[in-house]
């Protein structure tokens, strides 16, 4: 896209230099300035505009155009290429009507479909023939009429957003200024403190009370303490500033964010409950042959724990007490088990083995 100003020196397009209406030349009138009217985008110099339209609306002086123009509608073209200028204007106009935003749509696909729709309309307006243009205009108008409220709301929202952005910027600038000021003040205070303590030390030394070295050491300590306290205080201020956010400064239009649920501690066994159901594990059991293990700490040295032993013995005492193999295995198919285990190689290796067709066949290793 070629901007008007930048193109001057580069291009020597004669149409840039000669007014198509009065044929006055830039060479003769250096202050030549072209204006356009978005009604028909015909270019003419400001003198012509003044001359023709000062007395009220008149038809465009370009041949076969004949559109009625007003002086108010004329302005300087932003782009050198008037086609681009026109397209931008159309886009602006359509965008003011079709001003939905992405977060109003449920899926990305819907949003993209909407965008494509709008783009089609714009294309019709820009490039289409007379019929297309008419149809597109009609569509735009109808849409505008039907969705007046929504359009207004979106417009306001957009404005608000811009406003918000501006306000936030202002607030940030203000905060930075405050920080700067505070830093300066702090530095001054520190300087004064140092000065003051030095004066005190000197006074003390002069009065001759106590040991000289002690006094200087004490003074140094005091200075350090003070500066430390100041640092902490300033940090506290900073933190309170940071946390006290203006609720108006939050960005609008973002999707609602849910507070993260506190994560539960990771459970490696997926919530398996191994609590015993047939017995209550005691802290301690009397057992003759454990007496020695209890007393002798050599048993516990390697990590052996009597509680582990208790848990295991008690578990084994009741693990499977209610398992009735006759009932449970009876329902299974009879040859429940090994269908030939041996591999191909094993089968080959066993020379001249008889092939007995049976599930139970267990091929030999040899």
């Amino acid at each position, binding site marked *: 896209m070629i901007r008007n100003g930048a193109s001057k020196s580069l291009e020597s397009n004669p149409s840039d230099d000669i007014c198509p209406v009065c044929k006055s030349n830039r060479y003769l009138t250096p202050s030549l300035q072209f204006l356009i009217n978005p009604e028909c985008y015909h270019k003419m110099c400001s003198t012509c505009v003044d001359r023709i339209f000062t007395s009220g609306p008149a038809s465009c002086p370009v041949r076969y155009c004949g559109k009625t123009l007003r002086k108010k509608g004329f302005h300087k073209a932003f782009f050198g290429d008037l086609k681009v200028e026109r397209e931008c204007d159309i886009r602006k106009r359509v965008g003011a009507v079709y001003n939905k935003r992405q977060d109003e749509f449920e899926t990305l696909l819907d949003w993209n479909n909407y965008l494509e729709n709008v783009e089609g309309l714009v294309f019709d307006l820009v490039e289409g023939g007379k019929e297309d243009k008419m149809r597109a205009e009609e569509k735009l108008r109808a849409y505008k009429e039907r969705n007046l409220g929504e359009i207004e709301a979106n417009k306001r929202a957009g404005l608000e957003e811009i406003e918000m952005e501006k306000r936030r910027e202002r607030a940030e600038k203000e905060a930075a200024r405050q920080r700067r000021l505070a830093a300066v003040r702090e530095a001054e205070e520190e300087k004064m403190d140092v000065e003051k303590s030095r004066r005190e030390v000197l006074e003390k030394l002069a009065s001759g009370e106590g040991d000289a070295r002690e006094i200087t050491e004490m003074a140094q300590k005091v200075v350090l303490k003070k500066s430390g306290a100041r640092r902490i205080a300033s940090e506290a201020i900073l933190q309170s500033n940071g946390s006290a956010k203006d609720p108006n400064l939050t960005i609008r239009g973002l999707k609602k964010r849910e507070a993260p649920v506190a994560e539960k501690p990771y459970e490696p066994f997926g919530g398996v409950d191994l609590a015993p159901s047939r017995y209550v594990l005691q802290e301690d059991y*009397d057992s003759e042959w454990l007496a020695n293990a209890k007393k002798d700490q050599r048993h516990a040295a390697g990590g052996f724990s009597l509680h582990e032993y*208790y848990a295991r013995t008690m578990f*084994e*005492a009741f693990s499977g007490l*209610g*398992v009735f193999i006759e009932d449970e295995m009876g329902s299974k198919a009879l040859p429940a088990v090994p269908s030939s285990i041996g591999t191909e190689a094993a089968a080959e290796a066993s020379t001249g083995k008889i092939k007995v067709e049976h599930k139970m066949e267990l091929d030999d290793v040899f």
Partner: protein
Amino acid sequence: MSEDERYRTSTQYRLWSYTPQALLALRTTTNQIAADRVREAVRRIREARNISSADTSEAENGRSASAAIPEGEVDCLTVEEELKLVAFYSRQTLQLGDHLKVPTDVKATAIQYMKRFYITNSLMTYHPTDILKTALFFATKTENHYFRLTKFADAIGKTKPEDVLASEFLLTQGLRFTFDVRHPFRALEGAIMELEAFAKGGVPPLPGALIVEGTLADMEKRVKIAHGKAREYLKISAALTDVYFHYTPSQIMMAALMIADHELVQWYIGVKFPAADGVMLSKVLEVIEKCADMLKTVAPNSEPSAAEKKELSALAKKLKKCRNPEKMDLVALQRAKREGDGEDEEKIVKKRKLERESSAREADDLFGPPIKKE
């Protein structure tokens, strides 16, 4: 996850628990297949001998076997006979374990390995004296009782380390690669501990239940006596019968206790299963009674009677005659397999070497291999 559900995750439950009928069916099919194979193998060897009767260089296998080949139809063992022999060799394993001074659970595990192995394998195919050594050696490993192989072989006597290792993979496969055996020994300690705690009082029997009030008279003493007796039953009767296949360790333990003191167990189970759940209570008691009956078939201090001994020696002789001649010498088979593998590999290596050499030779020439003159 209740105690029962956790037991159901064990391989002992999933792979090694059968109803008596299923177990018998498995053993019968195994016996039949093995018998067929023995007959087939004998027939093959006889044919081979007839063909090459003049030829002295027979296959090593055939030669060693042919000496033992009896004339006439092979008289194979029946399922019952096999079972009797397995029981006999289980006793042998116990004695061997005593001789090697291994703990009870090692012996019990070894016996279970053997029993499990002979569900899907027949004595006619693999002789139990080979298998029981390997089983015992495995058991020392799985039960955390380290025993050096050479020492182990020496201690058994007339055994080389290769003999123990020859059936290593065979047994592993027969065990379907599951080495975990759940024993009732530790369970007994748990039950006794709790019973003693009940006797002293102040212990609730179930989560959320009241503290046990009315205990049996003279309970502490009774528990002690029952403990000793039950332990004997677990050590010997449980190992020598098929209870491991049909009942859970907890039930076996309760059954052993029940043999020792019927009233005590009835009271104990009554405490554990509240009256509201009457069905469960009666069912558990019934299963325990059944298990106890099975345990009683082999008393802890019983020895095979004279008649039984006679029968066993007759069976051993019979077994000698009907063994599968091709599976006689496991060590040789193992070696043959290993060497066979080695040969193959050697061939491949040689071939590769030749290829490499020829290609290197050709690459040495600046313009490649010479053009053959016509």
